[in-house]
């Protein structure tokens, strides 16, 4: 069936089985490869993107629920010229190692900062529950606090 939504600010329509996970629509039909496949069961968070500002694990989100919604992927979070505060903080702290899971973490963090602008360590522990096998958690925590500072300074 035909499903329409806005993705990274652009209107988009796809003709696809309505049960198809949004992840595969984004990756294989719209060719936005920044959103990653990790497990297909919403267990690792590598596929995290935003639907109407909410962090969603897109591997388990049927595309039909995206109808009429605003979707943001890592490609729409910021640009190299104008980084999102989360990306800026990730750069400053040199967080990524292999980097595969990092878009999911950055999208989860960006959504968290919209809800809790200045998260405590406990807020971070409770809300950032993705899996990073390189285990970059130590730098990530620093980057999340830094992103909160940058975001507040920008407002």
């Amino acid at each position, binding site marked *: 069936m035909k499903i329409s939504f806005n993705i990274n600010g652009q209107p988009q329509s796809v003709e696809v*089985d309505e049960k*198809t*996970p949004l992840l*595969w629509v984004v990756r*294989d039909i719209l060719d936005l*490869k*920044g*959103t*990653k*496949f*990790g*497990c*297909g*069961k919403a*267990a*690792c968070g*590598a596929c995290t993107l935003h639907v109407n500002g909410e962090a969603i694990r897109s591997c388990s989100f049927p595309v039909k629920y995206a109808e009429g919604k605003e979707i943001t*992927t*890592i*490609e729409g*979070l*910021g640009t*190299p010229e104008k*980084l999102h505060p989360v*990306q800026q903080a*990730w*750069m400053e702290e*040199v967080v*990524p*190692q*292999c*980097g*595969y*899971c*990092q*878009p999911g973490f*950055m999208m989860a963090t960006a959504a968290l900062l919209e809800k809790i602008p200045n998260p405590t*360590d406990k807020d*971070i*522990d*409770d809300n*950032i*529950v*993705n*899996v*990073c*096998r*390189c*285990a*970059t*958690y*130590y*730098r*990530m*925590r620093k980057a999340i606090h830094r992103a909160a500072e940058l975001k507040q300074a920008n407002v």
Partner: protein
Amino acid sequence: MSEQQKTEKKGFSRRKFLIRTSIGVGGALIIGAVSCNPLRRMIAGFANEAELAYNGETKSPFLWFEIKADNQIVLHSPKVEMGQGVFTGLSQIAADELDVDMEQLKVVHATTASGNIDPRSTGGSDSTSGLWQPLRELAATTREMIKQEAAKKMGVDASQLSTQSGIVSGGGKQMTYGEAMDGVTEPEVPETPALKDPKTYKYVGKPIPRVDLVDKVMGAPIFGMDSSMPGMLYGAVARPPFVDAVFVSADTSAAKKVEGVVQIVEEEDFVGVVATSRMAAEAGKRALKVEWDVKKVWQTSEIEEMVKVGKGKEYVIQKKGGSKRILNDPETTITVEFKSPIGAHAQIEPNGAVVSVEGDKATVMIATQVAKYTRGEVAKRLGIPEENVNIISTYVGGGFGRRLHTPNAIQAAALSKAVGKPVKCFFDRKEEFQNDTFRPPTHHVLKAKLTEDGKIEAIEHNVSSGDVAFGSALVPSIAEPILGADIGAWRGGMIQYGAIPNFRTISWRVKLPFATSFWRSLGLLANTFAIESFIDELAIKAKKNPVDFRLEHIQDDQRGFRLKEVIKAAAEKAGYQDEVVNGRAMGIAASTDASTPCAHVVEVSIEEGEIKIHKITCAIDPGLAVNPDQIKAQCEGNILMGMSAAMFEKMEVKDGALKPTIYGPYRMALMRHAPKEIDVVILENTDKPGPVGEPPMGPIGAAIANAVFRLTGKRLREMPLSLA
């Protein structure tokens, strides 16, 4: 002797001896001559202390550097970037000898078609250390070559020219490297010039941000799973859900009817589905009715029974003095046991490949740690020459040894050949967990006797483990009868306290019914957990501080000196103390792996019945620190990955199936488990870079367990560590 002279000295060095025997290049020795224990121990001793030199092509600058007209220099790396930061380190090294700015230099993965092929693997923590000398020579030679060409074009003698930031200048003239090489088709390769003093380097030694940082922060499509080819179809392969199972046949009638399925491909050893989308391929696979021949329905308890000291084949790999006789008396001998479980790689990017087979040629896009072996395997399957297969390596979404076996490339190639189009075929997560090449379970029996003044008179470490290195394409089968003991399984298992007068290490080899192989640091994590927990117990029995106790048992050679220095540095930086303060206790452990010594001090408390880690202090001596920030990053990652394995991770075999098959049930450390403080101290007690990517994994399990003992009085003898 200068650094350069030392490394340029040719001869039948220890290093070469190791390569020719254990890794099997050349293989000058005859099996009968070495398959006795003293010679095996000699080889094992070399393998324990050696650093592997890079054994690929290092004489042709053109294979490594491409100088573009716009003055961009492209470095074609035969080593893959899997998070360890190798692209950044190699860029720093190359830029300093090339005399270019880092911004001018771009690193890409060398394709096998380019000819710059790593004969071994990206792994074993030897990328930077192994390429340190050859890459500097290549870069310096390239710089001189550019100068020669510039001299011709400028009409100035090359001796009058100097280089900086990719510009050749002299005699009142200047031109860019790009201009100097523009139109040059057959430049003369000059003699390798003298290398610079590393102290004068502009980039080496500095905490330069990763060169792949922007791509990774912007979500650029750089991974194997992001690869695609025009006209590509999607494949899915049925993989055995059971241990010890072989494909027999498949009823494909239902799968053929699934919408989007293009073709069912039945091969002798597997069945696959090719479809127009990943979803359709997966649906087709689910509709297959596959018959597996399950030779035996295995259980964890049976595996554990196999992996017991005394059950497998016995090889004495280290021996000094007469420990066997001294440790014969049960009255005076302290005997303890430790265990570690089956571990999964659990890297987030699944395995898979995009392959196009056209006639007698094939192109493979894949995240692999072994491009050469992947190429060979695909060529063999297709029955075409290796040179007809081009492996295009991508960034790796987590390596850790999981990409040292790439049957996925063979399967994708077979599917592509069958349908005549490029095919993208990847594992799903359940298949990743069930078809991993696991870290084998281990069992350790340690014995020791203390003297009356609290010194270790004799110590023995028995380690039983499934295979790690054997069975891998990296280690030819001829190595098995030569070495006997699996060099991967006993890694980290030798006694490192050379001042003890009597010791032995005995490796017990067991072949398990599922694939076991390289997992970051191989046997190091489990072996160090066992040995360093035991050393801690002995220190307590001897009523000595565990720092002093370790120091007094380490020998006074260079290797011992470096180990003592990291132990002292970690203890001092952490303010190590034996007493419990405010409900928190400290634990220390240390090991030398692949020539790099590392010590950790861990500070823990118990909160709501769980071990809580507050702070980890790490001291490491990797020698010359090419990029101190990335060395810290590797230490942080090793520490937390090792902590995850030591505290949470465990695979089980239940009714013939490996479980769990998903994150969550396969428990791993998450953000909430990571300590808020990780303090890394870098010592540089040698003048060249050493391994970093695995050595910091070693001491973490024991350091945690030792801290828990001080807090609770309970000695944890099994990973994952549990207070219950």
